[in-house]
């Protein structure tokens, strides 16, 4: 049975959308998204891109943009717009399917940068890149972590004010799709305070070094800045950008958790189906109580992840007071549980799960990668304590 057949049989083909309360417009949007993915990048084609250094095709990106994938967090005056008016709630619909169907490409960073610019950039700065992002002509990414992948509030890149601009030196690590990005939103440090700069990737002194990734559909790179000179218009918002960084992290986590839910749902669904098909000792293995009880627990954890991912997207969309704490809560939980679910799905599959041809390991790779991409569970828990004043 192919992956797609399994997905269809397992009912994961859309009907298992994590949000119970989609509007009819959103349901239609979801359907269109699924149809587009299945037509453009089914698993066979996704696998062909695993060895591609960029990881996706620019033409495909443009088509995805036509569906509105990069416009949902962009204001209308800059070519954006969303289905429901609540852009993040639409975006998580796409994110979930990207995970379920193991899609490559810069969906996460493009939307994070779009939101950052929409919220903090001047009209001129917005006009410079937002229409291009919304249209899929411009690829943008967020350079937020230090060289070792840790959150440093910009400390690893020193921006010194010069006449008419800034000079940047330092490095960012684990930057998604820096390989193919046209614009970089760089978190840096100006006189001890955080700030964000929007910099063309082609600026002299910007050096991108690709990394090898566990998730074969994800491209990450180190980016270093060696005397990179930008003019004053590169500074997005004011110096002292901690609030903006927090907000962008929340958006990133909302999208990432939704994506992970899609991954886990696919993984769990094919495992349940496999256990019904596979026989041993004269019975389907799914009739053995030991495996049934494992799957019952996985079902519980998955439902809990879905509940958390929807609640997080809603809280971030509504800028609720609990969004910050909830982001860490959901990310910590989903991050832990993703590993637990992946481990047990592999166990129930047995040998076949160890073969390259079977898709389970691709899902496992993404699930594990997502658990660390915007902070590891233990980091989220520590921040959760801090957020609660401990």
């Amino acid at each position: 049975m192919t992956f797609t057949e399994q997905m269809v049989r397992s009912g994961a083909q859309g009907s298992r959308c994590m949000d119970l309360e989609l509007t009819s417009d959103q349901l239609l949007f979801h359907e269109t998204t699924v149809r587009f993915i299945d037509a453009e990048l089914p698993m066979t084609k996704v696998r062909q891109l695993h060895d591609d250094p960029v990881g996706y095709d620019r033409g495909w990106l443009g088509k995805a943009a036509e569906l509105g994938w990069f416009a949902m967090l962009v204001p209308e005056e800059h070519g954006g717009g969303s289905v429901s008016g609540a852009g993040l709630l639409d975006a998580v619909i796409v994110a979930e399917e990207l995970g379920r169907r193991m899609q490559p490409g810069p969906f996460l960073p493009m939307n994070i940068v779009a939101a950052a610019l929409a919220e903090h950039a001047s009209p001129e700065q917005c006009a410079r890149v937002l229409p291009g992002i919304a249209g899929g002509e411009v690829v943008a990414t967020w350079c937020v972590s230090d060289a070792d992948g840790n959150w440093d509030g910009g400390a690893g890149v020193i921006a010194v004010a010069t006449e008419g601009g800034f000079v940047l030196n330092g490095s960012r690590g684990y930057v998604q799709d820096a390989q193919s990005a046209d614009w970089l939103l760089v978190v840096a440090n100006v006189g001890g305070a955080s700030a964000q700069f929007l910099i063309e990737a082609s600026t002299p002194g910007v050096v991108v070094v690709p990394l090898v990734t566990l998730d074969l559909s994800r491209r990450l790179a180190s980016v270093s800045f060696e005397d990179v000179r930008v003019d004053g218009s590169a500074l997005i918002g004011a110096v002292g950008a901690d609030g903006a960084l927090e907000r962008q992290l929340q958006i990133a986590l909302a999208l990432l958790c939704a994506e992970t839910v899609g991954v886990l749902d696919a993984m769990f669904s094919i495992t349940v189906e496999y256990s019904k098909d596979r026989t041993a000792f004269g019975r389907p293995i799914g009739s053995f109580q030991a495996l049934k009880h494992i799957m019952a627990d996985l079902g519980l954890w998955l439902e809990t992840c879905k509940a958390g991912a929807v609640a997080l997207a809603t809280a971030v969309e509504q800028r609720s007071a609990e969004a910050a704490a909830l982001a860490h809560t959901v990310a910590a939980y989903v991050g832990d549980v993703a590993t637990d679910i992946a481990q047990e799905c592999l166990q129930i599959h047995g040998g076949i799960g160890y073969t390259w041809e079977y898709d389970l390991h691709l899902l496992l790779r993404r699930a594990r990668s997502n658990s660390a991409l915007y902070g590891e569970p233990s980091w989220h828990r520590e921040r959760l304590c801090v957020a609660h004043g401990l």
Partner: protein
Amino acid sequence: MSDTITNTSSDLDAYRQQMRDWLAANLPARDPHAGLRAAHEISAEQLAADRALQKKVYEAGYVGITWPTEYGGQGLSGQHQQIWNEESRAYAVPAPGGIASGVTMGIVAPTLLAHANEEQKRSWLPKILRGDELWVQLLSEPGAGSDLAGILTRATQDGESWILQGTKVWSSGAMSADFGVCLARTDWDAPKHRGLTWFKVPLRDPRVTVRPVREINGSAEFCEEFLDDVVVADDMRIGELNEGWAIANSMLGFERGASRDPGAVRPKGGGIRPIAPDLVEIARSRATLTHGHVRQLIAKAHANDVMHELLTARVVSSITKRISNPSAASYIKLGHGILQPLRACAAMEIAGRTGIAWSADVHAHGETAATNYLNGRIMAIAGGSNQIQRNIISERLLGLPREPNFDTNKPFREVLRTARNWGTKGE
């Protein structure tokens, strides 16, 4: 019952005002720190006083608000009931016998309303509403917990009467109650679900012995009852002969509804849920709040608390909207059953040595942790163990193939024999 009646808002406002006045004049304010009184701590005097107070509330028309008037209720709408729920929250509404009152009103009365015959309902329900009678369930047995349909209490017909013989256990509040609804086996040759019948049993009968069960933590919320040839008339039979299993299922539904912990759902707009205050307190008392390991434990517990709350809301909503089948409630139960023991263990881990000994004089966080540790698996066992929930989830929600079955299709007599001899004939 009467939700289709249209209430004008001025009628409702008037109802609310009248109620407010009555409450202020007649009931003491609720002590927000008072939990439900433990069953074995309720004196006879306290019980009598609470019953008298319930009669007063009943006579004012505030017990059985939505119940049919022919059974002693007020026949009003759900909106009226909602007004009572809101207005009475601040008052010490009487609950005679503590948990016994909850069982009577939340589980037994709805079951009787649904399954007793007309004459029984007219005779029994008004007394229940008035506070004259407290009823509890006589359901589980020492030999039948998870497998409730496997009960061994027997009811033998003797002319117009029935003779009941057997032992029941885990009956909440039975030491305060007057009657029990008792599930008994009336046909031993039928398959196990098809030979069961319900009876009303007087608990003050000399042939009934009610004995509190001392629990692991030293308290005694539950009772064990020995029915030693108790004789009840046939008009004490509830529902049809041998059709008791459907009533049991219906009752278990009321039980789940009654036991849904309202405290688990945060009031809307009530702000951010504080981070595991109990665990934080223990860590603070040991000066370990700065330890990375302890902080991880606290944050993990908090994340589980929040996530289970969100899961609960999702499942309730999806059942209400008929997106999920009602078995999805097992996710909520299993979540409790998995997480509460983890939380109790985490508290003990943070408490360390302070959880194994404490001073008798002062309030000790360690003592609380230890008590919670002893009680920690209650949600994993009572009301359908984790294993039972996992069976339900895997078969009814995930559609996994059923386990082979060795008991539902053969005479119960034979089931008992086979179980005893399991493995000797290669089952």
